[in-house]
């Protein structure tokens, strides 16, 4: 793969000087979820050939707005017009017919079906007695060729890489003659080079007269790909600018409502090793290696960031350190003691604080109370139970303390956990696991989906623990997060892990190449370091 960021064609937006027709108009869109005002009277318009970036923090209401546009949700107030005609609310079918296509952040593809099936489903009359697969296949290949979106129509989607799946998603929209394409956080799962490729595709599409909305919370993408930028904050549209006439600082302030200070970890000398993996291999049920002879050492006062495209073994690495799975070969050691067969309870006892990738499904039991979740890792401690009987009073008092210490916003220890916001759930997990002075912290996607306040809180707590002597294993798909926090970075690809690379000796371009599997560049980085 070559890096093409610099070789981009001139934005077509040069044409969007009032002559191109307005293809989409949103007027006064308002949507509430219970007490939360997700969209507050938002009005926007989009022209043919234009790329509009919808910029905002997590929770600002970007995805909700696009889901209303695409008919997944119905707005409480407001109207939508596509190509001059009103769009009936609440119907993806109507949106598709009006020429709107959406590429969801979590791909809506069926893994067990072929690419062609995924693209063609719903495009024919339902009661036609046979499918015309030949024509569909030719059309798919033709579109793929025209926009440089190479795919194999008969491949199972489950066998495709993340980048390929995204191409299938875009083709799905094009196959249905979409003239307006919505992409929700399209680069979140891509390497920097793949992102550049995506932007190039977007250029080809707009050159063809399509209008594109892409949702993002990353500044550099806005400047790399958009003609116009609309900024959302807390459900309100706070500004719309031509991208060329604005700058990063201004957008950042609009987006967050105040100046943002990135975390700046003070350099600390690494201490003794806390985690040591040597040649650890973990295999799936089908015998495929999920981790392939991984070597990794993490020391006290050190944050090690694991970068990589999702699905390359991050989950297995996190599960291993959580105690959920065990090495099939090789050894894992904590503070010099082997933990090859340690279960989650043993990991907790040995001083591992674990922040799981998915706080809803793995971190917390939503149907239980806050206090019940706070003692989940140590309910057998004499402090919380005696002879099998829970000491509910003591557990509640403890929960009170943790809620205060970690600033968890909730009605109290008896509140049901699923009612908490994502940020407060994450604080709950931090409180459960960091309150006991851990030696090693596993932070798996620790800020995914959090708003900016919660993100900086989590980062602050992780850096505090690092200063106090913990080693941190930070697994994140967000390269910016790794670059901001990590002392050393390793890239994971197909279950293999590069050696640790000092964060100040490796460039984003190099990380991108490593994430895409171009490990031939490793010697030049290691030599330079």
């Amino acid at each position: 793969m070559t890096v093409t960021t610099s070789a981009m064609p001139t934005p077509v937006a040069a044409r969007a000087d009032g002559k191109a027709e307005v293809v989409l108009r949103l007027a006064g869109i308002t949507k509430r979820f219970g007490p939360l005002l997700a969209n507050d009277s938002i009005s926007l318009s989009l022209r043919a050939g234009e790329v509009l970036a919808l910029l905002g923090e997590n929770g600002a209401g970007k995805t909700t707005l696009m889901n209303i546009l695409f008919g997944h949700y119905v707005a409480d107030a407001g109207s939508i017009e596509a190509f001059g005609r009103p769009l009936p609310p609440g119907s993806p079918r109507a949106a598709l017919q009006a020429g709107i296509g959406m590429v969801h952040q979590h791909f809506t593809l069926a893994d067990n079906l072929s690419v062609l099936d995924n693209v063609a489903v719903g495009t024919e009359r339902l009661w036609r007695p046979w499918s015309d697969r030949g024509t569909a296949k030719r059309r798919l290949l033709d579109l793929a060729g025209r926009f440089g979106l190479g795919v194999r129509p008969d491949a199972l989607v489950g066998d495709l890489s993340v980048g390929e799946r995204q191409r299938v998603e875009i083709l799905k929209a094009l196959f249905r003659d979409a003239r307006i394409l919505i992409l929700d956080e399209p680069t979140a799962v891509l390497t920097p080079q793949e992102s550049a490729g995506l932007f190039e595709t977007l250029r080809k599409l707009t050159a063809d007269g399509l209008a594109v909305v892409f949702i993002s919370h990353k500044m550099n993408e806005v400047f790399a790909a958009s003609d116009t930028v609309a900024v959302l904050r807390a459900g309100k549209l706070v500004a719309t600018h031509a991208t060329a006439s604005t700058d990063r600082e201004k957008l950042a302030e609009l987006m967050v409502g105040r100046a943002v200070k990135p975390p700046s970890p003070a350099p600390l000398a690494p201490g003794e090793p806390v985690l040591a993996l040597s040649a650890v291999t973990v295999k799936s049920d089908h015998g495929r290696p999920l981790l392939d002879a991984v070597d990794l050492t993490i020391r006290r006062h050190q944050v090690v960031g694991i970068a990589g495209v999702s699905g390359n073994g991050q989950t297995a690495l996190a599960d291993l350190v959580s105690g959920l799975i065990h090495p099939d070969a090789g050894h894992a050691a904590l503070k010099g003691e082997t933990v090859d067969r340690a279960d989650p309870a043993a990991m907790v006892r040995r001083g591992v604080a674990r922040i799981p990738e998915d706080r809803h499904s793995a971190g917390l039991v939503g149907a239980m109370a806050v206090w019940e979740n706070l003692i989940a890792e140590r309910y057998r401690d004499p402090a919380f139970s005696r002879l099998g009987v829970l000491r509910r009073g003591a557990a509640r008092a403890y929960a009170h303390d943790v809620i205060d210490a970690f600033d968890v916003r909730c009605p109290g220890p008896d509140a049901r956990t699923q009612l908490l916001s994502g940020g407060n759930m994450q604080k709950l997990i931090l409180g459960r696991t960091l309150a006991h002075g851990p030696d090693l912290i596993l932070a798996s996607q620790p800020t995914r989906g959090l708003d900016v306040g919660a993100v900086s809180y989590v980062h602050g707590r992780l850096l505090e623990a690092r200063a106090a002597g913990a080693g941190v294993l930070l697994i994140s798909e967000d390269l910016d997060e790794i670059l901001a926090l990590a002392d050393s970075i390793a890239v994971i690809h197909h279950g293999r892990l590069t050696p640790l690379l000092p964060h100040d000796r490796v460039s984003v371009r190099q990380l991108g190449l490593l994430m895409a599997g171009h490990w031939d560049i490793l010697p030049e980085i290691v030599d330079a370091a």
Partner: protein
Amino acid sequence: MTEILDILVSAAFWTAVLRIATPYVLGTLGELLCERAGVLNLGIEGIMTLGAMAGWMAVYQGADLWTGVLFAAFCGALLGLLHAVLTVPLGLSQHVTGIGVTLLGTSLSYFVYRLVLPQASTPPTVTPFQPLDLPGALAQTPLTYLAFALVGLVAYVLYRTPVGLAVRMVGENPAAAEAQGLSVTGVRIGAVMAGSALMALAGAFLTLSAFNAFFFNMVNGRGWICVALVVFASWRPGKALLGALLFAVFDALQLRLQQVAGGVLPYQVFLMMPYLLSILALVLVARRASYPRALMVPYRKGER
């Protein structure tokens, strides 16, 4: 050993195999259709019972045989609609709802039968479908032929038509189907109704073809065996046919062996075989079963 060989080469044995297989073929196809759309239908046992009773009752009241079959299918589709409404738009537990539908179908059948025939000590009979005038094992009733034809039809619909693709899609990823403009609720309800009609046909076969009367407990776990056969068949119609035939071979064999070796082992040991075989089949395929991804996962549009 030679006894088993003797059995296996006799035409009468294979006639029995095809007859025994028929309700399993129909029931398995019906369950497969529901599960392909992502809905586990444990109402099958009750739907088969209702189909058996309704088909027989229609004929007993003077309708012709095919009208009885159609009426059974209609009643099955109605119970299917109930199951679908509760599990699809309302998203209730498919396990518990299915058990509820089975209890309802069974009790309703018994209630109606008793209401119409309050003090029948020996069950009254009707003239059932007659085997076609064909040689050897081909001498089957039209319903058996219908069942085998339906395997081809269901396979064709699932893999070669837009509606079949829609069914598979809502069973794999309902959100994707929704995003492609399909109504997940509509497709699922339709698939469950069609599948339930097939289950009811399996029941009607028992009273209008295999036997000529309705008995209490006559379905006797056949529905549950079909649920196991669907897993065994990896949710494929062709394999479902194979599974049902294989199963019928064992069943016919145990019936024959019961006669031959009846003195040695209690007959109950033979009767247990179908159930134990089903459990064994489940264990064998469990590891590599590739479930429809959305099976038993309720889908609520726009839920956060």
